[in-house]
């Protein structure tokens, strides 16, 4: 009897590893409230439906790690959540799978073929749209420096004599240059035309005024969770950031914060599929589900980012209040989307091609500016 138990446990031991290596897909994203929304919105449902295990890995952007994985042949990442600029660079470098868009991705629930159902054309052949998010700024409503009057425009963010206090900015040039030009009076739609002229210098001068002002001053954030933290701790009075993170802090954590949508930068976020990975086939299947009408609508239940598909918005609107907050209960999400009409009165549409083209110049100017602050 004892012997039988021994044999059985040995068999179980041998079987265990084979079971563990059954299909799994590694998805790399930005962590925090955002990854949580992806996991709850389409990661877990897909795992339940297909039996394929979906693992979530955090990163803070950039292509070096996946480049190193591809060059060394030890690929562990399957799907990555990236900026538009990185889909262009990564696709050029041959790191990602090129899609045959309408054949690879299912039509929307409204019957539209995939390429029509997605809001905008993809920036490269390797990209499939995920969300529309926004760079905007938020302030701490409890801060003693607000004397009954609160900021409501991008100009106010750059006006330290009216609203004294330290500002928190993103640690690289992206978003800061656009905000500065908008605050300097450039209409949101024309920002990149001015960039081609002497826009970078003009934006940096505007930023210098703010950061060198004795009433102002700047600190910098690099992880999406930082701006709300800095606002709540009082380290900054206003902070730029991603609208979903601000919204999460306000609704789920009850932080005394408010967002300002004037001069917001609308940006798209994408998924890419790493070429040559061991789970490429499974990952493709998972990606189909993630970016389906239901999948993308699912993540909007947990974060205030707009799904990339028109048909997903239909699903949400038919079923408001759609957002599901563990603390505040059900909340109507459409008014909090970066695409809501009230929020898009003056906005900039991010131009990834300008960044891809002028990457070196922009970054050198930005870092030199920062180093001489």
């Amino acid at each position, binding site marked *: 009897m004892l012997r039988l138990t021994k044999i059985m446990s040995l068999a179980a031991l041998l079987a265990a590893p084979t079971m563990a290596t059954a299909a799994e897909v590694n998805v790399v994203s930005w962590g925090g409230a955002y990854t949580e929304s992806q996991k709850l919105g389409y990661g877990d449902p897909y795992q339940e439906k297909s039996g394929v295990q979906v693992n979530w890995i955090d990163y803070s952007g950039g292509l070096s790690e996946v480049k190193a994985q591809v060059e060394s042949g030890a690929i562990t990442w399957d799907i990555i959540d990236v900026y538009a600029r990185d889909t262009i660079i990564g696709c*050029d470098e041959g790191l990602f799978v090129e899609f045959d868009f309408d054949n690879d991705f299912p039509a929307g629930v409204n019957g539209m073929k995939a390429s029509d159902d997605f809001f905008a054309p993809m920036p490269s052949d390797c990209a499939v749209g995920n969300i529309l998010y926004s760079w905007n700024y938020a302030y701490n409503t409890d801060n003693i420096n607000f004397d009954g009057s609160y900021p409501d425009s991008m100009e106010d963010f750059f006006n330290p004599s009216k609203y004294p206090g330290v500002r928190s900015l993103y640690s690289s040039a992206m978003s800061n240059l656009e905000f500065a030009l908008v605050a300097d009076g450039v209409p949101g739609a024309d920002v990149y035309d001015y960039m081609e002229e002497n826009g970078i210098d003009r934006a940096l001068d505007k930023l210098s005024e703010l950061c060198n002002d004795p009433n102002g001053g700047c600190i910098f954030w690099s992880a999406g969770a930082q701006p709300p933290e800095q606002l709540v701790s009082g*380290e900054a009075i206003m902070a730029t950031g991603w609208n979903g993170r601000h919204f999460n802090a306000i609704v789920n954590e009850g932080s005394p914060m408010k967002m300002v949508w004037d001069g917001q930068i609308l940006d798209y976020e994408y998924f890419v599929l790493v070429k040559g990975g061991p789970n490429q086939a499974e990952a493709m299947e998972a990606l189909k589900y993630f970016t389906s009408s239901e999948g993308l609508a699912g993540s909007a239940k947990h974060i205030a980012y707009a799904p990339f598909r028109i048909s997903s918005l239909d699903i949400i609107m038919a079923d408001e209040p759609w957002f599901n907050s563990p603390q505040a209960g059900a909340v109507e999400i459409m008014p909090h989307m970066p695409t809501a009409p009230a929020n898009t009165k003056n906005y900039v549409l991010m131009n990834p091609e300008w960044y*891809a*083209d*002028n990457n*070196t110049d922009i970054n050198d100017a930005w870092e030199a500016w920062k*180093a001489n*602050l």
Partner: protein
Amino acid sequence: MSAEIRTSDGELLSVKLRKVERRRRATAFLLAAPLLFFIVFAYVIPIFQMLGRSVDNVQMNEFLSNTHEAMQSWDGSEMPGEDVTSTFFYELKGLVEEKNHGKIATRLNYEKGGFTSLIKKTSRKLKDFDENGNFLDQFIDVHKKWGDIEYWLALKRGTDAYHYRKYLTTFDYEQKFDGSIERIPEKKRINVTLWLRTIFVAAGVTFCCFLLAYPISHLLSVLPTRYSNLLMICVLLPFWTSLLVRTSSWMVLLQKQGVLNDTLVSLGIVADEGRLELMYNMTGTFIAMTQILLPFMVLPLYSVMKTIPPSLMRAATSMGATPFLAFRKIYFPLTYAGISAGSILVFVLSIGYYITPALVGGAKGTLISNRIAYHMQQSLDWSLATAMAAVLLVAVLIVYWLYNKIVGIDNMRLG
């Protein structure tokens, strides 16, 4: 004439001795061999392979070998002739078919901004070209940038198999298309500032570590073992905590609404509006880095001080020296070996630091290693990153060489 000494088996003693010595050396080598192989294969070879990237452009040269050859006879004073443009057309066409045109676009974009969209747009339109027509005109029709001679000059030098331009960039110089070397425009100068700042931070942190570690190490060396062990654990504790946890703890302590400021305010030492700026500036960088690197100074100092007999100081004072004189003339010189070992350790470690300064240093927290990391991770300009890394490596080697000149490496005591 001296008699030859022989061993019992009749061999010359000197020969036998040499044999034994050789065997002993072989044994020693065999014992060290696994480590040696490991270091060579896992460390030395990869480093040199990586550093090679700073000058290596062979892949580009192969992708566009015919264009490169055709361009050799073009002097660049006026627009290239049809021999060049047609060669480039056919070669680009081949690259598009093999889907390699994206790679040349990113590489060429390092030479001159704008190439990414230029190559992409041109690649899409290649099929519309009339192969009997004028190629240059057709290129310009696709994108007016082809009418700018600098793009052709960038193409010429961007296909050289080897180049040293990344090393110029490292020191804020650039090579113009006419071959002259100039400093880059003031608004874009960044690297020299960062080199100087890195050296300043490293030297400052080393000095702070020395100031703090010297008394601690002395105390450690004179205390009875049971107390000194406890104190030693306190010194070593930071070693057992992850770097990020330690840095985050400093952020909790130092921020404006942090523990330290709160305490000072509640004690009435500073006013609530006048809270100290301890973070997001140089102060924060110095405090956090000094604490993190302190053990590297304490350990060598302690091991040296432990060996100094207390009787030396007593002898000096008994002969009439004041305590200060005895310290200056006797004790301090005896600790030189520890000071220099600790200093070189701390200096070399802090010259490569970047996570801590980036988190607590604010706008002034960017050091040269941050730039290396940026070019590795974000811009993917690995050749520039490795050029900077090579310069950093050389800088460390120079420090080591100076140390060896001044102190002598044999005098180093690490513990």
